[in-house]
């Protein structure tokens, strides 16, 4: 899976898949719902943290046009490849251009913007997404939270 994508990452998925089948629940419907909510989680962080104070040099060299903030990816299409689904996260390069690359990876003269990079790729975000998806699957199937 490409780095700027989120897929389904649920513990014990193989067991849940059997429950989906037994209960006649729609795994595709759940997957899309989970990925959309996962993207919401990431976008909420980006909306909050895409501010000059989190840019290199506190945004001293940033334009006032808020290019980066306005390029947060808001396309919630879920893309399927066979049985696997993914959704894009991060910034829309067509809108951000090089600004997102400058901030995500830095340059020899400029450090990467750690906070906003971590909002997309950091272990804390990935953990929160996984926890969210684990809760969502139990809710979707109507399972007690202590089932597993």
């Amino acid at each position, binding site marked *: 899976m490409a*780095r700027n994508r989120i897929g389904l990452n649920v513990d014990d998925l193989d067991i849940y898949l059997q429950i989906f089948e037994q209960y006649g629940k729609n795994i595709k419907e759940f997957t899309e719902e989970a990925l959309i909510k996962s993207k919401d989680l990431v976008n909420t962080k980006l909306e909050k943290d895409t501010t000059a104070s989190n840019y*290199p040099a506190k945004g001293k060299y940033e334009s006032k046009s808020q290019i980066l903030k306005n390029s947060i990816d808001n396309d919630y299409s879920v893309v399927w490849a066979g049985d696997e689904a993914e959704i894009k996260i991060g910034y829309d390069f067509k809108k951000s251009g*090089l600004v997102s*690359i*400058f901030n995500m*990876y*830095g*340059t*020899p*003269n*400029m*450090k*990467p913007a750690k906070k906003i*990079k*971590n909002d997309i*790729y*950091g*272990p804390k975000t990935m953990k929160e997404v996984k926890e969210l998806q684990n809760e969502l699957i139990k809710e979707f199937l109507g399972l007690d939270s202590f089932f597993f």
Partner: protein
Amino acid sequence: MDEILIELLESFGYPIYRQGSLTEAYPDTFFTFWNSEEVEHSAYDNNTSNITHNFDVNVYSTDIDVCIGLLEQARQLLKVNNWIIGIRGYDIASDEITHVGKGMQVYFLEQN
């Protein structure tokens, strides 16, 4: 872990800088790196067992062929030294119009 990475990259004979620390004119070809994160994965008996060290490794050059070739050589050297290649390559931005840049994301799993 920074020192181990630097030592490996130094073997190519080009300057190495931490990303964002270059304050002089760009050399013709050089490496930069950035330690994105160090993540503890498991613990036993109150001690951390596994740590993942996550780095960006970048090559900048006035010559695109050198840039691509050097990144590939660095990739192979790191693999031979037990580094894991997470993302093998992507374009990165340069401050100077004279240089192109390519980067990769690498990991090292430290087991205690």
